């Protein structure tokens, strides 16, 4: 699966991640999907609703009612929820064990590394259907014609 988006989407996530540093930030990727590509049409920041604020530097959660709202909004636009993004402050852009426990197949999980306050590498991952691990997805950044 490939994830296609614009430089503006990438920039939006980088800025959101830096603004939230040293905490983790999160959000949705909405758009359309074919059998081999996901096209991002909107990046939607979401509040980190993890219950313990003192753990926000290493945990994030998107509240279910926010999820319901965004899924409804996507459906009405003829889109779908393609996946989610979150930041890893001072950690590599690889899924952690915490991520795997909570992950769902089918969605893209974009991880933006933030090293000492500055957005670093970004990678996209998809959970295998048997939950045994992740496959990395190619991210294609291109401007809309």
């Amino acid at each position, binding site marked *: 699966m490939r994830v296609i988006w614009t430089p503006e989407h990438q920039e939006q996530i980088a800025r959101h991640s*830096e603004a939230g540093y040293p905490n*983790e930030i*999160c959000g949705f990727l909405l758009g359309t999907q074919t059998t081999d590509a996901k096209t991002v049409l909107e990046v939607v920041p979401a509040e980190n609703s*993890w219950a313990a604020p003192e*753990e926000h530097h*290493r*945990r*994030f*959660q*998107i509240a*279910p009612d926010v*999820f*319901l709202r965004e*899924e409804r909004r996507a459906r009405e636009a003829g889109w*779908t*929820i393609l996946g*989610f993004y*979150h930041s*890893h*402050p*001072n*950690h*590599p852009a690889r*899924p*952690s*064990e*915490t*991520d795997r*426990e*909570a*992950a*769902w*197949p*089918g*969605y893209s*999980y974009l991880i933006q*590394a*933030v*090293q*000492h*306050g*500055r*957005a*670093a*590498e970004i990678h996209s991952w998809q959970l295998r*259907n048997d*939950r045994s691990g992740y496959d990395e997805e190619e991210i294609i950044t291109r401007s809309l014609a």
Partner: protein
Amino acid sequence: MANRVTVLVPTALRQFANNQETVSYDGDTVGAILNSLTTEYGELRQHLYRENGQLRNFVNIYLNDEDIRYLEKANTPVADGDTVTIVPAIAGGTATEEPITFSSEEIGRYSRHLIMPEVTIEGQKKLKAARVLMIGAGGLGAPMGLYLAAAGIGHLGIVDSDLVDDSNLQRQVTYTTADIGVPKLTATKRRLSGLNPHIEITTHEMRLTSENALELFKDYDIIADGTDNFPTRYLVNDACVLLGKPNVYASIFRFEGQVSIFGAADGPCYRCLYPEPPPPGLVPSCAEGGVLGVLPGIVGALQAAEVIKLALGIGEPLIGRLLRFDALKMQFREYKLRRDPDCPVCGPNPTITGLIDYDEFCGITLTPEVNLKAQQEITPVELKQNLDAGERIVIVDVREPHEWAISKIENADVRFIPLGDLPARMHELNTADEIVMQCRSGVRSAKGLAILQEAGFRKLKNLTGGILAWSDTVDSTVAKY
């Protein structure tokens, strides 16, 4: 009459439900409905339930607009026309699967840190979790490595490709006389793991290049540049800026040292300070200009202090400040550094967005600058014939020590004098001898020939193609590199 309930399946799970967005079942409770769903679509079960049959923590089930957790959970009754929605909770976070703990031996070892309110056990955990990459195991790397290992930096990486040379021992205090000729990283790892067996030390025995730097740096949080040449400094700087990692920088020369932190968020980078390298040869290296042996001990320890502060997140790091130390005056001075808005790598409109050829950028050409006359060249085959004929020939190998360790010309009178040392050591050679200059490919040896010629040597020849050609045409057992 049974209640007909619609189940809304989230996008991610539709592939396990025949790609349907909604399915309908008859039942009396939410639990019964879900049971029918996962009976018909067995693959869904592992994503909704744990092995013990409990709903996964990250699955929320809504009946209409209410979370069943706040109703009667699985026993929540349903009415005809109700909608059950599976809502995946989206959560995660950075890896903390192995909480950082300390053995009683470590507690004792770090006790002078643990009793400081600025550090405590929480700070010591940060040091243990830190991943620091040292570039170079030389004068600066020696004290820095010792103090970082002693402080309990949990993951220490070191890049170097040199062998320990006797001229290192005047300042590189990690090495002993017995280490001469041993790869620096072998000796360093032995010394540091002897000092602190509780840390992980990774040795990267390689030359840092534009090809490997990004891949190598990405697994570390802090980079500490202790190198002594301009191409590597610009390479480390650019790689750190591109990856968003702080570069704790230090340099030394004769009696003076400098320390700063480049590439930190909102801080300047090395190019903001020095947009262009000096012309080649203008600023001598320590090998050429010398260095007071104790100087790197002081400056490398300052560098270690900055790394430790960054890892702990305390104090005022040297971001936007350059600290200069003069050992003769015994004086520290501080200079403010600003981010250059036109910086080609860390400015808002960067023109450098990937690593470049740093030898070329610093004006170091690999093409011969010396044009030798044809009669000053000798091919490997001719040299072999002359040696076999019993001619007295002195071969001067001007390569670096780590290169000699890889391969050399055997069964001949070979003198090893690295090109940089040649001006100071030419007295070891005799102008009466027939001298053949040799290096890897013939370029450096041609420069060496010019140096000796300038000094009055006349019986000089350059081995065409160097040891590479020797391996190709005379002795294939000589390794090429």
